[in-house]
């Protein structure tokens, strides 16, 4: 399609190819040219050869004229036109070499080529300047537990030095008291004795009884030596935590068990997995991507619930809700035991601070969560961390944007019912240790205003409805930059890119984060989707059904934050390559490594796990 003067300028160094037939003597203007964004496909299919072609910059000088009549898709060269600018080419190249003279990042999909989606980030190079301190978030190791107080304090002086004008303000604090659990046993009552958790025998029957749609429940205690146990698809992984006294989520004191987590699994009576796009059933050690923010950490004890629901209810909202509620019946009793049996003094105490940094770049994290109904839903703001009571499903809230403080996010304000592709699903535990929120909180250069959750509805009209609300919300927050993250791929990418558009068109720099790679390439796009980070970790760039494999990790958060900073500083982000290429991410990581002086530790992918039969057969 013909291009505008603006597009022609962006592509000044790309080949000049006529979009349509043009006659001898025609003086060329931008409307005569095909959009270079589609050339790669044309070259691939043998329709175009641009070798030796003049560039748009050379021919759009107002005096280049065709010396013969040429048809559509003819590249211009000295044989068919005259009056072009011979000097334009070398000059343009110099510009390119100078271009990295600042922060430059390089990732994903371009508006014109919305199918492409690569991952990646950053390049820091200061061409000129003195006394420039570059501070990049260093994260907290393993993407796991939140910073101990001491570390946070250590980071503080650096931040103060960088911003002498205005002081950091601690809005509120959340204390996490950690209690070590070394053994989980069954017994006559639910209680905690020392580091042993007892779960009452026979409680399964009561849990089943509490839910009409649940037909059975089995509780298994999976210790590390039993990791090679078969499991049905994992629906959720939850921290076991409770509030002290009457504290609300996100403030006061939370007690949490270390070393044991809840694992929800389930099928229908006839054995159909409660999952939509893929499911993670199989041997746990082959299907669990250990130590992802949302996954089980290697070495932890799993309290694994196998819940069956009535046939046909796996694809209706009440089915998965019943399974989760039945599990929470048991967890609620454990929470009561935690309140009653645990001593005041914990094994470890962590104080999480919500810090505002006046004068720094204000950023917001917009997290798209699933809200298509059926199994795609989330309980928002339960009374207890990752509980059920007191919560509202985001589907019932109309999926409209809902604001949360960073501390609420990390105190279990999301109970994730979603069963989308297991590799990209954000489990309840993911929010408990959300890497992007952590990076932002700990980065002294940015001022995180909070987190906005927005559901992804089923119908497109509703997607645009909620997206418009996201745009307005972010505008009113008056931020300097925004992140938009999502889980899953496909359908939800429609609203994901619309959120980005609604934020971008308000002039706010925005960075998108999603699993895309090969299988999840964006199905739609717009011109604001030009700064994207791909969460893919899988070798083949696919939804490999390995739990949490492709979810947002610390390394992704670091890249995204660096990219947003570049964007907020007005630096360009290089256009994505047309096809997913893991080297984009690797190059970016390397560049960040150089800038910060040490290596970002990259997480393992499914290749580190024993090969499952399913993976062998279907994927690798």
């Amino acid at each position, binding site marked *: 399609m*013909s291009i505008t003067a603006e597009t022609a300028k962006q592509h000044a160094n790309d080949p000049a190819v006529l979009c349509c037939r043009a006659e001898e003597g025609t003086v060329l203007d931008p409307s005569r040219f095909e959009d270079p964004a589609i050339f790669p496909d044309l070259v691939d299919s043998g329709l175009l050869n641009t070798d030796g072609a003049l560039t748009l910059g050379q021919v759009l000088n107002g005096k280049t004229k065709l010396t013969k009549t040429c048809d559509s*898709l003819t590249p211009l060269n000295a044989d068919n036109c005259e009056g072009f600018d011979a000097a334009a080419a070398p000059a343009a190249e110099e510009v390119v070499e100078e271009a990295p003279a600042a922060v430059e990042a390089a990732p994903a999909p371009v508006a014109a080529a919305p199918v492409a989606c690569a991952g990646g980030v950053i390049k820091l190079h200061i061409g000129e300047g003195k006394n420039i301190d570059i501070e990049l978030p260093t994260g907290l190791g393993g993407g796991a537990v939140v910073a101990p107080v001491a570390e946070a304090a250590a980071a503080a002086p650096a931040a103060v030095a960088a911003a002498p004008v205005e002081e950091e303000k601690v809005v509120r604090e959340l204390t996490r008291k950690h209690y070590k659990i070394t053994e989980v046993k069954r017994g006559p009552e639910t209680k905690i004795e020392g580091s042993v958790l007892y779960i009452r025998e026979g409680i399964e029957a009561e849990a089943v009884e509490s839910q009409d749609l649940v037909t059975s429940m089995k509780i298994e205690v999976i210790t590390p030596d039993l990791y090679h146990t078969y499991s049905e698809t994992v629906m959720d992984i939850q921290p076991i935590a409770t509030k002290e006294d009457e504290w609300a989520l996100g403030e006061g004191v939370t007690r949490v068990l270390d070393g044991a987590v809840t694992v929800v699994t389930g099928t229908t009576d006839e054995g159909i997995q409660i999952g939509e796009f893929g499911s993670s059933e199989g041997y746990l050690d082959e299907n669990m991507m250990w130590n992802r923010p949302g996954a089980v950490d290697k070495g932890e004890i799993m309290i694994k619930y196998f819940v069956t629901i009535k046939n046909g209810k796996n694809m209706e909202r009440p089915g998965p809700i019943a399974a989760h509620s039945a599990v929470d019946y048991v967890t609620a009793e454990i929470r009561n035991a935690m309140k009653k049996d645990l001593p005041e003094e914990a094994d470890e105490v962590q104080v999480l601070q919500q810090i505002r940094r006046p004068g720094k770049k204000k950023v917001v994290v917009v997290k798209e969560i699933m809200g298509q109904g059926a199994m795609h839903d989330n309980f928002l703001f339960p009374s207890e961390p990752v509980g059920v009571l007191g919560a509202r499903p985001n589907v019932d809230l109309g999926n409209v944007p809902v604001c949360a403080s960073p501390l609420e996010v990390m105190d279990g304000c999301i109970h994730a019912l979603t069963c989308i592709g297991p590799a990209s699903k954000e489990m309840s535990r993911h929010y408990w240790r959300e890497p992007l929120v952590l990076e932002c909180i700990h980065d002294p250069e940015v001022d995180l205003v909070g987190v906005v959750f927005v559901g992804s509805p089923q119908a497109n009209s509703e997607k645009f409805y909620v997206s418009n609300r996201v745009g307005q919300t972010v505008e009113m927050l008056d931020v300097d930059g925004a992140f938009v993250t999502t889980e899953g791929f496909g359908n939800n990418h429609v609203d994901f890119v619309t959120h980005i558009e609604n934020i971008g068109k308000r002039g706010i720099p925005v960075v998108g984060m999603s699993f895309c790679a090969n299988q999840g390439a964006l199905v739609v796009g717009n011109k604001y989707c030009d700064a994207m980070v791909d969460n893919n970790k899988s070798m083949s760039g696919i939804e490999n059904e390995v739990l949490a494999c492709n979810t947002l990790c610390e390394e992704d958060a670091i890249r995204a934050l660096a990219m947003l900073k570049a964007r907020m500083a007005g630096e360009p982000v290089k256009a994505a390559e047309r096809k997913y290429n893991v080297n984009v991410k690797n190059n970016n990581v390397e560049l960040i490594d150089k800038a910060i002086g040490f290596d970002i530790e990259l997480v393992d992918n499914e290749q580190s796990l024993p090969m499952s039969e399913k993976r062998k057969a279907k994927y690798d």
Partner: protein
Amino acid sequence: MDKIQMLLKQHVGAPCAPVVKVGDKVKKGTLIAEPTGLGANIFASVYGTVEEITEDRIIINPDEEQSDEYVKLEKGTPLEMIKAAGIVGMGGAGFPTAVKIDAHLDHGYILVNAAECEPGLEHNIQQIEETPEKLIAGLKYVMEIAGADKAIIAIKKKHRKAIEILDNLLKDEPAIERHLLPDIYPMGEERAVVRECLGIELEPTQLPSAANAVVINSETVCRCAEAVDEQKPSFLKNLTVRGQIKGGHDAHVFMDVPVGTSVRDLIERAGGLEEQYGEIIMGGAFTGRATTLDAPICKNTGALLVTMPFMDLKGAKMGILVCACGGNLERMQDLVKKYNGTETHVCYCKQAQEQKNGTRKCERPGNCPGQVKNNMDFKKAGCEYIIIGNCSDCSNTVMASGPKMGLKVLHQTDHACRAVDHALYRTLRVSKAVDQDLNVVDNVENN
């Protein structure tokens, strides 16, 4: 002879209201319906009896004997008489002429559209060859009414005979010029005429008045002369009947056909339908649509084309490229069905700008914006065939990449072009610019 059916809406605007009742005797030129808003008077086109009045038409049973006499219009100013005559744009659009030419131009232009751009039509050029004085007479009235002091007759250069006749008459008419057009589609689009004659590119939302001009079809101009000089109401129409008709593919030009005559009667007059045919198009191959034998012609009907039978594509996957020059989506879908294709993907030409009323207008008629992206989308959607309704230039662009990608390209007008012995719209082999000197032979390249 079939009954005469006078549609109450033969023009842009609101339907007219009948002013006769069942059983009334009518003559040629009897006023039978009046506008209820924007519109134009409708007159009986035959002697006969009003047999039935339905929601959308008045049906007249014609008498055996038909005199040439007609009920004359009252005398008045030329504008009053043209208005009373109920003349509407006869090139196809049907906009009430009196409203259009009451333009109050500031030393502007009347641009006479004699492009006759649809493939296979001949009645406009034949009329110019036969009664050029009528065109000049009508043009002078129109210029006077509109406040124009110049007029340009836009005609395709290939019509040498008509041009020579005109040139001969124009020697004594300093205010009237002619402008030669290349033989490509669409040259008769209103804004294309403005651009070709005056070099002004109008936005799709702009009327020619924005270029200080009025564009008017040549037959309409002649009807204006008839209204003023002969006090004749508008109840007759010239048209071309052509295609799969017994006796061959040559054009049958019928002058002064009573409006309301059935398609059947006209095709019979031409020789009758061939046994094998695809569909009957009322109007041109680009802008017309399928009709039936029972349908009546209107004041703006320019052609009846009987097409070749449709190929049977046996359910093959088909893409539709909709543009403003050809049929709308509905017409294209109709054709996909008739070709027995499976509609798989729809693209719109980048320049086919949707207007407030839902129709589309081309941003730069006849000048392609590039089509390869659409072809790629069709390919991606798995189309085997695509059907396009594009102008000459855009069709050329589609052909530059479509077949190489393995897309089989059909043009909306193919089955009509084959039936009127007109070249198919594919690769363009003529220049889009012509020399205004009739004796200069233009570059017909082989690209």
